[in-house]
């Protein structure tokens, strides 16, 4: 079946330093859609950004990610972490079928310190 792997469970960063969260996936479908959702404490998880075509960068709110089908990856990056980026980040996979099933990774808890 489909799966998503986020290798870092907990990440602690210093404000101003770059952020990179890893996401790799497995699926038999040739045209997957990848998403990053962010879950701030005491709020609802919400969409941060979603993939475009292969090798095309997508950006939102200072974060960016590029879908690389060759390596089955969709890593999340930001050039400079802010204290307000502290949250739980989920990578998710949708294979575009009628089911609309979204498979989530284990999540990466990010804490930004000053």
């Amino acid at each position, binding site marked *: 079946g489909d799966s998503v792997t*986020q290798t870092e469970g907990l990440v602690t960063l210093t404000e101003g330093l770059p952020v990179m969260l890893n996401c790799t996936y497995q699926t038999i479908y040739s045209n997957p*859609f990848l998403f990053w959702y962010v879950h701030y404490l005491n709020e609802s998880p*919400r969409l941060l950004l*979603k993939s475009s075509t292969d090798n095309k960068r997508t950006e939102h709110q200072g974060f960016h990610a590029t879908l690389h089908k060759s390596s089955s990856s969709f890593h999340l990056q930001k050039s400079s972490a802010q204290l307000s980026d502290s949250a739980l980040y989920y990578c998710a996979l949708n294979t575009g079928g009628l089911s609309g099933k979204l498979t*989530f*990774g284990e999540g990466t808890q990010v804490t930004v310190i000053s």
Partner: protein
Amino acid sequence: DMKVTQMPRYLIKRMGENVLLECGQDMSHETMYWYRQDPGLGLQLIYISYDVDSNSEGDIPKGYRVSRKKREHFSLILDSAKTNQTSVYFCASRDINSGNTLYFGEGSRLIVV
């Protein structure tokens, strides 16, 4: 503004009791979901509903059932709750007009003692 509402937000139940978690959305989305969130496991899919009375098991349906009698409402039922069902439960609905974005509720924290 798109909104998904969950009730109750917090619930403590004894083992063996029945639990009803309710979810509502005002966007007329056809597809709705129930997930549970556990540390280190991420969001795990319990059930999907494609519309009224059209439900399908997700990855971890055992011990749960669902009901959808109106498009706006999707209920998760635990018959005879178990301690390992202590978790935070999230409902979501899918917006096919925005690239299949999921809109989540604020979660229902269930503790089974």
